[in-house]
């Protein structure tokens, strides 16, 4: 049962990733593209964590942590660029 749960969750996140990709490519609004990339980061974090759980390994934790931090920074950077042109002023 637990394996089905993992498989289900993986499929959900995989689908989510593909939907994010679709949105990044097809969105009309630039905000949607950035949002989708941000979401992609978060979905990726979920996948990394899931993968760690599945393998019973802790070595993926840092990756997830850092992705959380860096996904945020890059999203802010993209958004700031659109807001002010200048991301550090």
């Amino acid at each position, binding site marked *: 049962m637990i394996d089905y749960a993992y498989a289900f969750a993986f499929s959900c996140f995989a689908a989510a990733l593909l939907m994010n990709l679709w949105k990044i490519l097809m969105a009309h609004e630039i905000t949607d593209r950035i949002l989708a990339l941000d979401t992609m980061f978060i979905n990726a974090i979920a996948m990394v964590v899931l993968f760690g759980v599945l393998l019973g390994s802790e070595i993926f934790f*840092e990756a997830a942590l*850092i992705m959380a931090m860096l996904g945020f920074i890059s999203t802010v950077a993209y958004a700031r660029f659109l807001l002010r042109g200048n991301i550090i002023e």
Partner: protein
Amino acid sequence: MSLFLIAALPFLGALFPALLIRAGRNASASSAALASGLAFVGLMLHAPAILRGETVQVGIDWLPVLGLHANFFLDGLGFLFATMILGIGLLIILYARFYLSRQDPMGQFYTYLLLFQGAMVGIVLSDNILLLLVFWELTSLSSFLLIGYWKHLPEGRQGARMALTVTGMGGLAMIGGMLILGNIAGSYDISVILQHKDAIQSSDLYLPALILILIGAFTKSAQFPFHFWLPHAMAAPTPVSAYLHSATMVKAGLFLMARLWPVLAGTPEWFYIVTTTGLITMVIGAVIALFKDDLKALLAFSTVSHLGLITMLLGFGTKAAAIGAVFHIINHATFKAALFMTAGIVDHEAHTRDIKRLGGLRHLMPVTFVIATVAALSMAGIPPLNGFLSKEMMLEEASHTYWLQNPYVVPALACFAAAFSAAYSFRYIAHVFLGPKRDDYPAKPHDPGFGMWASPALLVTLVVLIGLFSAKMVGPLVDAAAGAVTQSHPHAHLKLWHGVTPALYMSGIAVGGGVLLLALHAGLERIWTALPRPEAKVIFDRLTGALTERSAAITARLHDGSLTRYALIMVTFTLVISLFAYGTGTIGAPTRDLQDVGLLPLVGWICLIVATACIVLFHRQRFIALILIGIIGLIVSLAFNFLSAPDLALTQISVEVVTIILMLLALNFLPKQTPAESPVPARMRDGAISILCGLGVGGLIYALMLRDFAVPSISEFHLANAYKGGGGTNVVNVILVDFRGFDTFGEIIVLGIAALVIFALTEAVLSTRVRAYLLNREPDMPQAGDSHPGLMVVVTRMMMPVALMVAAYIFFRGHNLPGGGFIAGLIAAIAVIMQYMASGFGWATERQRIPYHGIIGSGVLIAAATGLGAWFSGQPFLTSAFGYVHLPPLEEFELATAALFDLGVFLAVVGAVMLALESLSRFAWQPGIPTEHAMDINPARDTAAQDPKEA
């Protein structure tokens, strides 16, 4: 005196005139004369031995690997030439002292002259053909300086370049010929080569060697069709012409032919090439000389003609002809040098060399007239002067020479040329000195001082004496020299009267013809002027001009500054060569199985592929391309995680974000769109090349992944010893800080340099007018009002300590688990960048206590110091040490120098990333922006500000 010293004296002497010119012109000239004179004396000390038929040899190894030895030898031939070079050289030095004007830099002149003299002496004394080549080319170079001595004259520059080009070309051809010759003979030493006549003449390479060497000799001696440079070299001051074109440089070619005569001459190839060339040159030179109005041009073409004469004699290949050649070399040197000097005197006094503007000078310049007349008559072949003697010998030899079985061609043409020779000689006397005195000379001519006419006077004295007492005067010298040429012991029968021989008839015809030609000169000149004939200089100029133009065009076309093209060529070339390498090898069967594809990799792959394809499609919208790059970074990082490379995943994603920040900072100033510029065919071509490259690279890695290592990888050692020898369980980290710590050391230096470069560049750009442009720049997108939103500021403030904690965690665990100094450094840097982004550049910079330069420097120094620490325990650089410490009540923990090294990495990374981003940010920074507050909107501050007011 050692031959070394004789050869070296002119070169040593060359130093002094340029230095002593400050002490006066006489000092300068005297120093030059002293050097020449000493060398001449030294040479004369060898005279008795040489005239006895002995040779003197000295030598040291210079470049033994090549067979280039600094070997000198002195035999009759060398002695003859050295005597002329040094003797006439002395006279020229004297003459030039009075010829050159006050405006001319005399020191330079004598320096160049002595350099040239040294090179010439070197040629004639060399016992090694490679050494000879060295001196040979040196004469080209030094004569280039001499001919171009009057820098302000375009003719001087052009003449010098022409001489250099033609003789340089000959010299280069000769290098080829000499190398072949040396290889056939097995040595480059002339004395050895001369022993190998049969080997050389029977070699397959004889003809190429002969042709190449002869090109060298012919160009130097101005033989047809390379004769055209010589008249243009007359732009040089007259002493130069007198020296180079009577006794020395042009004779170098003759010397070479004479020198190699024993091994090269005697074959039909030699005969037809050399004789024919000489004959043609003799005729053409003589004819042209008659119609030249410039005195020096007349003499120049006469020189061409006489060089042809000697060449022809050498070409005959008989001993008697060789003797004649040697004798004429002597005679020509004496009368021609004297003639050049008189021409120089005329020019100097009358301020013109144009025959048409001269005449009647005999009344004004009696001394010069006498000297010139004697020398010219000798050139015309009038007895009893020395020119007559050798010309007789030439005619004699010519009279029984068959050319393609024809007995008349050579004698007839020789006689024809001799007639023209007599004619231009007579013209030199008649049209310059004879006739009525004129009143339209450009200046008022009169005989110069003794200093100036002493040299030619001495020479014409020789002309007369040799003519009268040839056997006594030069008999032994001619014998010795001819002996050297023919490798035998000939005895030259030098005397005025040989009886009534065909040569005497021919001489008579020639002199008579000469008088007739002079009489008909005006008419002939009209015909000559009317004749269409190729002007060598025009052709040469057109050729070199075209060559230069073509070169410029080719160069500009090839290197047009189009990186696009350069890159395309590079990529294509790499592709082609790699395919060639693959195609010429064979590939074995795969040894590994494919692995299954799960859902996750597939989804990741789709994302990656689609994003990459879309970057290409949408790359013109730059911002969107950057977002897509973000996807690729993310997926690659996920792939690294999935494929057992957690460290890589961490590094990739961190670097990714910093890169994107960097690009966004730059994109702010760049255009936001890329225009569509390349035409569709170019895009298709680029696409095709790119796809081929992609296929190649993909195919390569696919093939590699399906095969095992040929032998197990060295990384097995790393896995086996990471813990035991490196003290860490994260093998990748142990490799980075220990097994291959040196790579990492280089890597942080790269990063540090990158930051320094960026900093320096920022400074460079901002110190120009770009600064003003940036200050006045209007943003090209609508800007939001709020530049530092409070929510962001608060969150980043809270996150900063946490992020640093995470950085510390990543740093310390790196040795055993994924992480390490590099990633930690990036995270720490990002923690600071967050402050910059949220609170503003000015605000964050003010809070930065330690300069980033210092952080980079300390990082590199700490890493280096850690490496150097090992020296104190006698270990190599970067040897790590680690130990386990147990401090109750704490548990045991590890201390490793690798951590210190990693600290260096950490600091370098933090410093480098921050310095780079800070520098980039400065582009946008406007000095007016207030920096005391991080947040634009802060109601607490407003309230606080209002409260005291209300109170």
